[in-house]
């Protein structure tokens, strides 16, 4: 069972209210200069097949049910990564009326990647940690 699970992790990316800066840095990580796919990770937009959820930005009112829905659709074991300062601790959007809550108030978060915008190097380190954590979760599953 564990052997069958230990394939390449697929990740799902959702923007919950960010400014787009971390989104394009995340995409830049997939491309030849940074190439995070060398760790065996693939960006798939399907929550039912995803193992790692990358969330960008503070959680806005309309994004909250979407995030809960996406997280609920993902199979166990799963790892959640919060990307960017505004996802980790609201950052510059602190006090804005549209910002409902933080990510770790609605779902458990495993890796935090700070930075406004988070730099590709930091994102790669965070993703690597998330992959290791995911593998460890499979061992204990």
């Amino acid at each position: 069972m564990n052997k069958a699970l230990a394939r390449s992790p697929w990740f799902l990316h959702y923007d919950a209210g960010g400014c787009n800066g971390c989104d394009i840095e995340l995409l830049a990580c997939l491309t030849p200069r940074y190439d995070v796919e060398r760790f065996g990770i693939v960006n798939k937009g399907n929550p039912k097949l995803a193992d790692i959820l990358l969330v960008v930005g503070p959680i806005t009112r309309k994004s909250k049910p979407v995030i809960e829905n996406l997280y609920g659709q993902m199979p166990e074991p799963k790892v959640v990564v919060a990307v960017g300062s505004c996802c980790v601790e609201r950052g510059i959007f602190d006090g804005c009326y549209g910002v409902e809550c933080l990510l770790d108030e609605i779902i458990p978060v495993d890796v935090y990647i700070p930075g406004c915008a988070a730099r590709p190097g930091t994102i790669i380190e965070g993703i690597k940690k998330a992959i290791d954590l995911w593998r460890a979760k499979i061992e204990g599953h």
Partner: protein
Amino acid sequence: MPTIVPFGPQHPILVEPIRYLLALEEETVVGVEYEIGYLHKGLEKAMENDYIKDIYFAERVCGICSMVHSTTFVNAVEKLAGIEVPERVKFIRTILLELERLHSHMLWLGIVADSIGFQNLFMLCWRDRELIMDILESLTGNRIHFSMNTVGGLRKDISEKGIRFMLGNLDRFALSVRKIENSLYNDLTVLKRLRGVAYLTREDCKRYGVVGPNARASGYSNDSRMDGYEAYEMIDFSPILKAGGDNLDRVVIRMDEVLQSIGLIRECVRLLPDGEIGEKYKRGVEGETFFRCEAPRGELFYYVRGNGSKKLERVKIRTPTLANLAMMEKVMIGLEFANVPATALFFDPCMSCQDR
């Protein structure tokens, strides 16, 4: 009885959330509704604040075009306060604005190439875009939010060494753009996928208030750079127009604008005067004004009202992406379902600008 198919808010092809409800008769779209506001944080309310602090908010309206947001906001405040910035500041701002256009257009081309299944081109575009990101990083110190603008000038100067690095990288970038153009325009599959799809006439553009490269691809000229803000009045500039109005022309016009921007940057460097980069201003602003700039996606509009103190009373932002959304129902109806995701991206959506 049409079938209703939801598209979004989370979809493999969408980088950011938006929700379309498509009414389908077999494979053809007969009706479309959209729902926005997934990223609405209330930035306009947050900007009723000290105008120096507001520059940070203005930059964080959008991560792709942060320079043009801060430039427009700062220009509006300078107009209210009656500040004339030095010429060197104008040229440096223009260089950064055009660099931003370069990286935004390459990013867009990569994403739409991915949406029509041409993943190789996505990788190539984003590889070459890193040349521009390197320039921006060496000039400003940041990749996304540059924090260069302040009221009355710039926070820091750019160095000779940085300019030499920029010109070298731009030469390499221009070569790669030529190569990408070559492979794109000679690819039969791409041409068949794009030609004649999502057709929009000049009258439609006027009626739906389309702005930016999308309007210019239909022959409707509305480039705000012709107003001559910053250094655009001192350099030789005229907007590029295309007549086709389909998805192919939307690619062609952006590729042409990329090459034009490279020329504009080189001209700015040639004309770059020496001098001060401005002083820090901290005084109250009174009255109301607006300013518009040409963002990579079209006309960006800032309305600012002050009451004599440093705190602003109201800031209103009109972004090009929200203006471009209205014609979606015009363009989507009659499309084949397979073309819908690509067409949604061909109009260069940026949901964080749009929802704020």
